[in-house]
């Protein structure tokens, strides 16, 4: 991860740490903080704790988003301090709805000049974002909104497993992982397990990104904590609740970053510090999908 972030992410880049509650790239976010990257544009429909931590650490200049909150808990204190008071830095906003932002990434992934959608109708949001425009249908008198493409410099995406070249299997909630990877210039893929190519080829419907689109493959077990990886570990809800308290006080944020980000060398140390009891509490019971018969055709 150190190499992938060190080589993949530059100051000033637009970065999408993808995921919808599930498979959030926390380890990558913490590595970005440790490497003191600056002036980043943070892109994601649902900036959550990891973006709050990046903002609190002074890494961000802009957030491109559609819902900025702590899922199931409340708001993002560092995000709010930046927007309301410019602390620790001013934060420019480029705001969408979920569908608007996903459509913009899709335009980027599809090499299109815009994506049309029936979103934003009746909302005040288009007045505050120049990348949202009302357009007429070329075929009848209907009209829709269009969003300009979003093409992040870097996307970090996570999946449960991948082979060494970056063909990745993901199950559970997929969010915008695929289009973020396809829209981005550089892709860092981090996974819970490295598997064989044969495993990937045994179940190709489960593949979310292929090696052609991946620049760095990182074996990064528990790299989503305190978010979750379906089938591997659950969401550490206590950590989300704890962040709401910690982040409400800028001094406590500093102490937290010192302890959990700057104070550890890498994800392995973070996990060791977290402790085996906590990880075991997050472990789900096993519940395998019924195997499918792909058939052997000759």
């Amino acid at each position, binding site marked *: 991860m150190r190499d992938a972030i060190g080589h993949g992410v530059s100051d000033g880049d637009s970065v999408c740490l993808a995921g919808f*509650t599930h498979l959030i790239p926390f380890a990558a976010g913490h590595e970005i903080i440790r490497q003191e990257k600056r002036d980043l544009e943070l892109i994601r429909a649902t900036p959550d704790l990891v973006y709050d931590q990046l903002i609190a650490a002074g890494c961000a200049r802009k957030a491109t988003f559609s819902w900025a909150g702590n899922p199931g808990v409340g708001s993002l204190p560092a995000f709010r301090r930046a927007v309301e008071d410019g602390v620790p830095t001013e934060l420019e906003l480029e705001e969408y709805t979920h569908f608007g932002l996903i459509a913009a990434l899709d335009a980027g992934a599809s090499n299109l000049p815009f994506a049309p959608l029936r979103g934003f109708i*009746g909302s005040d949001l288009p007045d505050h974002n120049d990348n949202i425009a009302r357009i007429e249908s070329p075929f009848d008198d209907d009209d829709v909104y269009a969003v300009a493409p979003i093409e992040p410099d870097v996307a970090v995406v996570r999946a449960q497993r991948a082979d060494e070249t970056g063909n990745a299997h993901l199950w559970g909630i997929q*969010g915008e992982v695929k289009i973020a990877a396809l829209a981005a210039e550089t892709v860092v893929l981090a996974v819970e397990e490295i598997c064989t190519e044969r495993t990937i080829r045994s179940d190709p419907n489960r593949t979310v990104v292929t090696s052609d689109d991946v620049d760095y493959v990182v074996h990064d077990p528990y790299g989503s904590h305190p978010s979750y990886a379906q089938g591997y570990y659950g969401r550490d809800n206590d950590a989300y609740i704890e962040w709401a308290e910690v982040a409400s006080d800028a001094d406590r944020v500093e102490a937290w970053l010192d302890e959990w980000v700057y104070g550890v060398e890498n994800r392995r140390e973070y996990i060791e510090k977290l402790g085996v009891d906590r990880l075991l509490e997050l472990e789900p019971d096993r519940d395998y999908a019924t195997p499918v018969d792909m058939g052997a055709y000759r």
Partner: protein
Amino acid sequence: MNYTNSELMVVAAARELDNDDSVLVGIGKPNLACNVAKRTHAPDLRMVYESGTIGSNPSSPPLSIGDPVLASGSVSIEPMRNSFNYHLQAGRLDVGFLGGAQIDKYGNINSTVIGDYDDPTVRLPGSGGACEIAGHVDRTLIVTPHSARRFPEAVDFVTSPGYVDGRRGREELGLSGGPEAVITDLAVCRFDDGGEMYVDALHPTTTREEVRAATGWEIPFADDYGRTSEPTDEEVRLIREELDPDGLYTDRE
């Protein structure tokens, strides 16, 4: 009857749902309401979440709309692009639950900022999928506490359109559907022919004066306004024993 105001809100919301509805659910009371409906009068109710899970059947109360219990055992999990495109925009969902920091007399909802957008007093989370839900489902249900601060005559920012400036205003934008009911801790409100909110039923112990005082404009009452039906023993039992045993969303002691 022994029940809390939150339990009453959950049950009142559940009763708005029909057996063949597909519902875009939210976390907390909407999720409980859908599960109460599913286990009483609407067993075939299809629960869909913004995270793309279709036909979820959560075994415990999800703490966020991306919770793993919503994925396990669902009938399908769509990438976000697909769920918003094919399911929501294409009109495959009947009902959506919404909340917000401000709701005005036409059911327009603000979940973006209090004050000026560029210099906000309070920065809120933003739309998420709410704007699209408000625009594309047939009936939106708003579940929220009732206070004058939360119910101003006009919202500071329209995140999600209700009846805009009246039913005609919504039609002119090409939007069908609209808010069906606003379920608060004091009353159940609905919208008249012009698209303005009125009180349809007061909760069993609420007075007209309480609702007036907690609403930022002179909200009208239906001539024959009624009283919200109390939860049944079975509905209360479901919530307490099965759906929200820790009282996370129904504020029990």
